[in-house]
């Protein structure tokens, strides 16, 4: 089955082509079926491939060479191994559920077929990203998902804010992509190849970790790409704005899959990062800072999707924390569990928004649990999972991250614990404000409240089940020495040096995090049972306004650039370039004014010049050159 791996991206591509070219003519329901079926087909193929990989198979499937210059040869090749097969399953599996969800969620929208075309294109690009056997193919997928993200955030482009949110996401991603591109060029320049196997093979050939060496620079450049795509400090502000898109899009792209591309890339380049300790330090600190900062912001947000968005940023920060510790498999583990519960939470919030006819402000909700029981329960499961309550999936992965940070860097561990604390708090604040208490909206909205149809609830239930059991493939070392996922991934990902913790310490850590999670969950529930929404002041106001990061960027980057552009326009563009271009025109005109005196209009004169030129050429050719 592995040799047919090209089928996996092929199906969504076909779905995109059909829906994309026929979006004016294809009926909505058919468009949804095409979109979902294509992803289901890839999921089936991915599943078959996964089982083969589980039995130890891995392969590089080359379709054709598309760049062939000199010694450099970059084929369009797919790398199938444990890492990519896990991602395949996450993308196609969750992707399929979200497609099914979308058939119902988007049914009112007139651009539904176009939406499915974009969604399929996204799945295709994402699959290209994780399947590529070299950085260039990954880069193609990387740009492709960026494009789809832009298209889908601005899907309701008639709203100006939404369209500019899409643009913001695109521009910020481009900043990161430049880093990725530079990293790629550095690899090409230093190693002459972009193919993983060749590149890592060269790395393996007895090279010591060297500080400030080229490895660090390559690793940092690649990490800048990851920062852009995975919304880390300082390029995280686009992700909350990206919530302008349809909610399933937020679930699929901006929570479960695309934003984890950075994690995938660093896990894929684990060998490189193992040789670049400085870069790893940076990754870890940025991850910790992001986790902390986003968590603080999430505490004071009132938009249901914004809260989830900041929690996503925060969780991504956790993943990068793990990466910074060299615990790549742990990060991938968290990617997986996070994909389950965050998709669940987003879809649940979508269900809520659906019921509230588009209202997203939690100050106007409350008591929704009475009307939509399934959504409430599944959302609760999601909250439990993300908060890190024991025996839910998030607990295992987050605990593993915290354990790895404790072993390496106590400072980061402290930040991580505080962030986890806040996570539990704001999630239960969100849950409580939304589902319990009295309804605070208008009468019309209350009258309209209803449970969502099966196409929405079934994915919710499935994801809820996954959120519960998903963690058991990576039980901590104290319970069982056999870490299933880490073992499975070890064939393609090499973890950095991890200090082993004694069982005693581990139990202690588990105890601490369990206690914190439970305590702050309850606190979050209790503190928000009787909400009163007074205008915030002091630190709370700073938090509500997201630490004024957007304003800071505006003052530090946007306005100086505008000023500079105006200056350049006035002096360089108008006087320099325009002057030069006009000068060329003027000089040609002046010259031709003189030259046209040669044009006597006398044919005889022309023939004479012709013969003369011929004679001179002959003379030159025969006597001077020859």
């Amino acid at each position, binding site marked *: 089955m592995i040799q047919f791996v090209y089928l996996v991206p092929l199906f969504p591509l076909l779905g995109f082509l059909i829906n994309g070219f026929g979006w004016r003519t294809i009926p909505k329901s058919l468009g949804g079926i095409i979109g979902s079926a294509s992803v289901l087909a890839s999921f089936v193929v991915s599943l078959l491939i996964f089982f083969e990989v589980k039995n130890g198979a891995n392969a590089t499937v080359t379709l054709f060479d598309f760049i062939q210059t000199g010694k450099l040869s970059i084929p369009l090749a797919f790398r199938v191994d444990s890492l990519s097969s896990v991602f395949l399953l996450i993308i196609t599996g969750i992707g399929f559920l979200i497609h099914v969800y979308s058939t119902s969620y988007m049914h009112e929208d007139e651009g539904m077929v176009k939406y499915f075309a974009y969604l399929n294109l996204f799945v295709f690009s994402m699959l290209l990203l994780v399947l590529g056997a070299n950085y260039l193919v990954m880069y193609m997928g990387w740009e492709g998902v960026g494009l789809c993200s832009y298209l889908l955030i601005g899907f309701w482009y008639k709203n100006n804010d939404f369209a500019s949110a899409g643009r913001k996401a695109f521009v910020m991603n481009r900043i990161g992509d430049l880093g990725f591109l530079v990293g790629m060029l550095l690899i090409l320049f230093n190693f002459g190849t972009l193919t993983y196997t060749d590149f890592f093979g060269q790395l393996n050939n007895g090279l010591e970790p060297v500080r400030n060496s080229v490895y660090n620079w390559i690793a940092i450049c690649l990490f800048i790409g990851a920062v852009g795509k995975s919304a880390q400090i300082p390029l995280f502000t686009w992700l909350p704005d990206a919530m302008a898109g349809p909610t399933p899009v937020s679930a699929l792209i901006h929570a479960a899959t695309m934003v984890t591309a950075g994690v995938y890339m660093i896990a894929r380049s684990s060998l490189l990062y193992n040789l670049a300790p400085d870069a790893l330090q940076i990754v870890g600190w940025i991850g910790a800072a992001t986790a902390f900062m986003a968590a603080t912001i999430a505490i004071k947000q009132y938009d249901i999707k914004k809260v989830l968005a900041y929690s996503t940023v925060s969780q991504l920060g956790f993943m990068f924390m793990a990466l910074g510790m060299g615990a790549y498999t742990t990060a991938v583990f968290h990617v997986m569990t996070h994909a389950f519960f965050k998709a669940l939470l987003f879809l649940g919030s979508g269900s809520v928004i659906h019921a509230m006819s588009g209202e997203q402000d939690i100050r106007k909700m409350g008591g929704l649990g009475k009307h939509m029981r399934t959504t409430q329960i599944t959302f609760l499961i999601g909250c439990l999972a993300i908060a890190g309550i024991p025996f839910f999936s998030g607990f295992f992965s987050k605990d593993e991250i915290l354990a790895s940070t404790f072993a390496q860097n106590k400072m980061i561990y402290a930040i991580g614990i505080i962030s986890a604390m806040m996570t539990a708090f704001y999630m239960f604040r969100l849950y409580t404000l939304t589902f319990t208490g009295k309804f605070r909206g208008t009468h019309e909205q209350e009258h309209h409240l209803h449970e969502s149809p099966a196409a929405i609830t079934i994915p919710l239930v499935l994801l809820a089940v996954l959120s519960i059991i998903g963690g058991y493939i990576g039980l901590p070392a104290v319970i069982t020495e056999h870490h299933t996922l880490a073992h499975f991934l070890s064939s393609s990902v090499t973890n950095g040096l991890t200090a082993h913790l004694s069982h005693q310490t581990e139990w202690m850590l588990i105890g601490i995090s369990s206690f914190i999670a439970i305590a702050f969950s309850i606190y979050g529930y209790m503190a928000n049972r009787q909400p009163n929404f007074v205008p915030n002041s002091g630190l709370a106001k700073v938090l509500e306004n997201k630490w004024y990061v957007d304003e800071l960027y505006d003052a530090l980057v946007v306005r100086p650039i505008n000023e500079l552009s105006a200056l350049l326009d006035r002096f360089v563009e108008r006087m320099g370039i325009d002057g030069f271009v006009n000068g060329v025109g003027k000089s040609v005109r002046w010259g031709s004014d003189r030259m046209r005196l040669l044009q006597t*209009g006398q*044919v*005889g004169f022309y023939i004479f010049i012709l013969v003369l030129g011929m004679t001179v050429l002959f003379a030159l050719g025969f006597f001077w050159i020859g």
Partner: protein
Amino acid sequence: MPIQYYLFLSFALFCIGIMGALMRRNAIIIFMCIELMLNAVNLLLVAFSKMYNDASSQIFVFFIMVVAAAEVAVGLAVIVMMYRRVHSVDINILNRLKH
């Protein structure tokens, strides 16, 4: 017999054609001089064909003839039109391109 004989002959004819084109003002005569030059080239091609025992250059002569015939058809039509307008075939009258 060395090929040089034919080289010189065809160059002589060619140069006579050029002289004619330079000396005369009658458009038709200039046209005829061009035909003369083409024929000089044809002659050279045939000589080379004989030298190399290769038919290709004779085929080139055919193509030159075709082009020459087409050129004469169009060119003479142009000259006739010109004569109809200005009642002369003096090329020096046709200097309007200057303006």
